């Protein structure tokens, strides 16, 4: 995975805050998910017999490298959250392997560990939840909330915990004096910082972020995205980032896995995926995102029909009933995820022949060049309309 995505000139490291770098971090994978399956039984009838299976995650494989941000993206019900929860063993997978390389170099299969063996492992993998209102105990102050994982893992001295909590609050951009306050005193964005501080308390190597910014207002969302990126770089963390918003995924990830009805449709380096999507579903997702520019009003292209039911998926390729390119083979034969180009995996029978639109083609010029899209930093119109805008604060 050490190769640069083809066709993209590596950006110079000029910005001290962002790397803007297309390189996918290489090295041995920290996490290897192999053929992961999670099926939920459907019970019915008088005796609550199992009458069917919801295949929430159905044969999913991917790697997360050291220092990498891998995103799982898809619409509701695609299995992205279930996958993330299986990785942490918040759910027990039905089948498959979740191989995690521990700090001591040993590789363990998280899917098969016993409960007692999981606890030491959870020092190294942590989760950030979506809802910062539901994930903090209102009866505990920040010292107790952030200090609890420390206590559980053996930091019993109160002073040691206070020192560490102060350090963590500093790290996420909150004042250490806040440690004696309770969650209700904080706004959504601040609470999410607390959630992040708690997740980082035990110096994890893998952080699973499940829709970590979805519940936040846009002005606060940008702050948290910046914080997540900054922390990732400073602490060389790896993220498994679960999200439904393509713009955010594009912004934060090194690589992206697009999921559809429990399967990975496409997995590729971010730039590659967005510029040259190989799966019709990936392309369709991009075309459905409304562009924040009134000069580019194209008909939004939705997909016909609805997301397939994972309890009763269609035959062949799960996407075929909505796919504009479906042919006979797609109706009968289930495509496998295969490597089309180095690092670019896709599960579509027709991936080679199709020429799909990426984000470059969606711009009016069609030149594929980066355009600021009317955004104020580079938009000429904003400069003369008002006193000079402040740069990034």
């Amino acid at each position: 995975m050490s190769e640069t995505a083809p066709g993209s000139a590596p950006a110079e490291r000029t910005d001290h805050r962002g790397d803007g770098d297309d390189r996918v971090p290489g090295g041995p994978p920290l996490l290897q998910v192999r053929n992961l399956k999670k099926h939920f039984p459907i019970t019915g009838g008088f005796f609550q017999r199992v009458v069917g299976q919801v295949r929430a995650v159905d044969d999913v494989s991917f790697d997360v490298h050291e220092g990498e941000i891998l995103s799982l993206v898809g619409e509701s019900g695609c299995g992205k959250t279930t996958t993330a929860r299986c990785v942490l063993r918040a759910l027990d997978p039905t089948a498959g392997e979740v191989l995690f390389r521990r700090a001591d170099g040993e590789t363990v299969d998280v899917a098969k560990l016993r409960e007692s063996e999981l606890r030491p492992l959870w020092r190294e993998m942590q989760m950030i939840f979506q809802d910062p209102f539901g994930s903090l105990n209102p009866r505990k102050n920040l010292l107790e909330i952030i200090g609890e994982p420390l206590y559980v893992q053996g930091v019993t001295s109160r002073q040691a915990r206070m020192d560490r909590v102060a350090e963590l609050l500093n790290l996420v951009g909150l004042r250490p004096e806040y440690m004696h306050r309770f969650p209700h005193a904080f706004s959504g964005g601040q609470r999410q910082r607390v959630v992040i501080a708690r997740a980082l308390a035990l110096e994890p190597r893998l952080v699973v972020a499940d829709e970590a910014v979805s519940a936040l207002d846009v002005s606060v969302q940008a702050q948290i995205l910046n914080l997540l990126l900054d922390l990732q770089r400073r602490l060389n963390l790896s993220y498994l980032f679960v999200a439904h918003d393509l713009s955010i995924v594009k912004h934060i990830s090194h690589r992206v896995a697009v999921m559809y009805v429990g399967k990975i449709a496409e997995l590729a380096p971010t730039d590659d995926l967005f510029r040259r999507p190989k799966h019709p579903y990936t392309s369709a997702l991009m075309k459905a995102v409304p562009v924040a520019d009134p000069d580019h009003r194209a008909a939004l292209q939705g997909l016909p029909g609805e997301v397939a039911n994972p309890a009763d998926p269609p035959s062949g390729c799960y996407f075929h009933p909505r796919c504009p390119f479906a042919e006979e083979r797609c109706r009968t034969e289930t495509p496998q995820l295969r490597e089309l180009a180095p690092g670019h995996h896709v599960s579509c029978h027709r991936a080679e022949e199709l020429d799909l639109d990426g984000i470059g083609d969606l711009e009016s010029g069609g030149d594929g060049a980066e355009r600021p899209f009317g955004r104020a930093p580079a938009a000429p119109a904003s400069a003369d309309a008002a006193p000079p805008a402040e740069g990034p604060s």
Partner: protein
Amino acid sequence: MQQTPTRTDRDPDRARDADRTAAPERPGEPILSVRGLKTHFATDEGVVRAVDGVDFDLHPGEVLGIVGESGCGKSITMKSVMRLVQHPGRIVAGEIRYRRPAGDGKKAIDVDLATLRPQGRAIRRIRGGDIALIPQEPMASFSPLHSIGDQIVEAILLHQRVGRREAKRIAIEKLAEVGMPNPQQRFDAYSWQLSGGLRQRAVIALALSCNPSVLVADEPTTAIDVTTQAQVLELLKDLQRDHGSSIVFITHDLGVIAQLADHVVVMYLGRVMEQGPVRDIFHAPQHPYTRALLQSVPSLHAEPRVALPTVSGSIPHPLHRPTGCPFHPRCPDAMPGRCDVAMPAMASVDGRPPVACFLHHDQAEEDAA
């Protein structure tokens, strides 16, 4: 919307200048005029000024986008217009003038909705019949005990002088109009039998059933997936084009606003910060808050993994409103001694769209706290 094809052909910069110098051409007399609207909530801890002096006009055949973050009062503004604000909320000041010429078998109406009794006959006739709502949560707008068809028929019988048979015909027609497959059979379906996208279509059919002049869409696509959202937005665009409906579109999604709205109102903490034609708002935002909003959304077309420009701080608690301009504690251009003392009035400079900011003019509001 009709001008869009020709406009996009032009050079964007030139078009932008032309737009700024020309008076914004908005069709006809406003159908809805809101002036100085204030809706306050008297709670035990204090008075929440959810809407605190809002002015805007909605013109016939126009899509008006109201954009802002949570707590900015965008939903309460439109709930006030429909007189759906619940206790302890109350309209304490302002005028909501609704004017509709005669037509469609309905008499002309010219009324100040703010003066009507919230439960009275007059507002109940207008609500649903003249001004219809597409709510955010489609599951909550239908009763699970009755079929969607029966509920649409009920709305038609309430507002129109037709028999049950005719009402059923209209209901099926509306279901077909919003792209419901097999409308004859779906008439008897229950809301829980429909998928998210179809349920939202049924809600739109219900809203359209009495041929309203104004459609209020309150975050109609927030709860649904992006590919389904695209279908619903296209449907709303078609309806607007084919029927010339006036739509008030409430959302926090700038992408949706850019794609749909003709005119945009930007709100923050119960106040309008800036309003104007959609292209001015996106290409020449005047208010620092509008600029901040536009910058802080990551774009599909921007450089990845670089720090996004952010606004410092977060939205203040509604009970602890800052004095002066509500945005000044977070504003990068705030002028001490000015912005924290007086509330800037909504005023336009050099023919540009109106903005409430001292960076652009010096007019303060007299009754500012």
